[in-house]
């Protein structure tokens, strides 16, 4: 049975889930995420930040804005109430300026995660082979160098293990120049959970967890993007 989040989005004919919805869905699949809450006003953003604890991250919430940081829609490392208030105003203004027709739900408030190795996991559908999972290092590694590995769903542990070790940047996961190494078993577990989830959820067309921060004792997705199949 599809998740309520999926049924609701399909009913609304909005195939692009917001970050908040995407994260709830991932959470249901057993994938750790940094919780995001929706603030519909500046004062709400400030009070949520205080509850979450500083520093926080604010991001635009709009089903029409997919590339949030390109639209000035992300502010990181906000350390106090004043910074949060200012960020809220700026994010909403930037979104209206760059995407005048976008429906703006508000701004998401989340805890600023501690630094770790940035990795990306994602799913898309191949015309011949169906859902495929991707793994790579986040940021410049995926965007410029395209240092990524793919596997066809469903994955077995060997596939997860091989695809992580297949990327050229693998040594960075083992701890480079004193950086905390990533726990590879945890990343394998995440890939297997994701494989299992997308295998059972044909309504999903594309998915990005970008980035996931990988630590020596765990990993957490700080952003998520889920796009559903458009209903005929």
């Amino acid at each position, binding site marked *: 049975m599809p998740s309520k989040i999926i049924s609701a989005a399909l009913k609304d004919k909005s195939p692009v889930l917001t970050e908040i919805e995407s994260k709830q869905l991932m959470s249901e699949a057993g994938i750790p995420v940094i919780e995001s809450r929706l603030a519909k006003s500046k004062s709400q953003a400030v009070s949520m930040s205080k509850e979450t604890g500083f520093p926080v991250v604010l991001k635009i919430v709009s089903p029409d804005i997919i590339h949030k940081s390109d639209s000035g829609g992300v502010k990181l490392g906000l350390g106090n109430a004043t910074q949060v208030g200012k960020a809220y105003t700026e994010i909403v203004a930037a979104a209206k300026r760059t995407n005048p027709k976008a429906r703006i739900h508000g701004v998401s408030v989340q805890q600023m995660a501690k630094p770790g190795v940035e990795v990306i996991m994602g799913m898309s559908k*191949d015309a011949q082979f169906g859902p495929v999972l991707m793994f790579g290092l986040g940021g410049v590694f995926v965007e410029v160098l395209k240092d990524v590995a*793919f596997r066809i769903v469903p994955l077995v542990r060997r596939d997860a293990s091989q695809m992580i070790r297949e990327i050229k940047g693998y040594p960075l996961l083992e701890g480079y120049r004193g950086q905390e190494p990533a726990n590879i078993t945890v990343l394998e577990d995440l890939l297997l959970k994701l494989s299992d989830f997308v295998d059972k959820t044909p309504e999903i067309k594309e998915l990005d967890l970008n980035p996931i921060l990988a630590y020596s004792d765990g990993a957490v997705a700080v952003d998520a993007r889920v796009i559903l199949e458009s209903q005929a």
Partner: protein
Amino acid sequence: MSKVAERTVKNLDRAFNPRSVAVVGDKQALGYMWLRSLSSFKGNVYSVQIDPHELPGIAELGVENYRGLLGIPGPVDYVIAAVPRAVAPRIVEDCIKKGVGGVGFFTSGFAETNTEEGIRLQQEITDLASKAGLNLIGPNCVGLYNPRIGLRHTVAQAYGEEGSVGFIAQSGTHATLFSIVGHHHGIKISKSVSYGNAVVLDSTDFLDYMGADEETEVIGMYIEGVKDGKRFFDCLREVASRKPVLIWKGGETEAGARATASHTGALAESSVVWQAVIRQCGAIKVDNLDEMVDIIKALLYIKPATGTRVGLIAMSGGQSVVITDVFAKAGMEVPLLTESSYERLATFFSIIGGSYRNPFDISSAFLMVEDPVSNLTNMLDIMDKDPNIDSVVLELFPVIRPLTQDHETAEPILDTISVFNERSQKPLIIIVTAAYSDALAAETRDKLVKRGIPSFSNFERAAKTLRKLADYHQSRREQSWN
């Protein structure tokens, strides 16, 4: 295996191992290419042709002609159809009525032409054959090749020998070229098929068949696309767990028009997904015909290496530098030998200008010194016994005329290599560089092939092949755990 698959394999087996073959529509304009190719066929060959102008030519070939498939007495296991496309549906109907094992359609001009007529006719033969469960191969293909029984699609193909390599190609050119080029390198085919437009039987059906075929130990495939990716994936994973499967994917650079909103979607091009499929299933990816031939002959003839440490023997100073670079770049180690090996070498290695660390530079003066055979025997023996070395690589430089023309010198050297190859547990890789003469290199290669020893035409091809073999054996080991 499903019941449907079992039935397909059973019927396909009849087509791949026919006792009788009928050619429909062979003609002067084609040079009677089909009937001529079948001059080597062990069973009955029939012609079906209604054009009176063609009958004398067919009679001249000593082939009995009939006016229709249904007129042929006794069963027909395989039909080759080279008829005009408009007649194709009628031939399919006759094949169904006759109860043949399979039909290969050389006829082209169907959907690949993107014409209304071509698309309509293709749909018609597809529907007829699918409904009746007829094994239709093609259209637009050269069909089946089984050298053991002399079933060929060109007179240039070898016949009369048993083989262990199955080849599956969408393209007829690649199927033909592989069979001919491969033969030069000692690759003997069990069965091969070109399947063209794949309207009824697709690559997966042939992979399933060759996977079950006891004669076939190694499978090569040239694929442009598959009809059902999931079925192909499952079949490949199952077959590749039992036999080496090499895949050469054509059309890798195709620009797929995909509307995507995610990083993943933007990066998931068809070529990288195919790479994932091949890796995930434990198959071997090759990028061209040369690589296909190199890796298959290595799988057939070269013993599996236990490690990546190579002992190199080259025929000049310059070559010994370059061969080291090439093997090191391919990820192989070129270690020093043990002290006792060097002590043994010092007792006989007296080649002026040569040296013997690793690589050995034996210089082309090698064949002019007193006892080249015993020197080579000793060098190979040292490599064989040295615990620091996993594989032995030997360059032969056929500018040395004796290797081909002076029988008295050449045979003992080749014998020495054969003896080592049979006795040693270590893989032996021969590189016949063509420096001065392609013809001399080919002659040397042929002499080695006759002795069951494959050779490579340059250092890069040899090194790349060794690397891929090492990766394959590594992935086989990984494949055994989940």
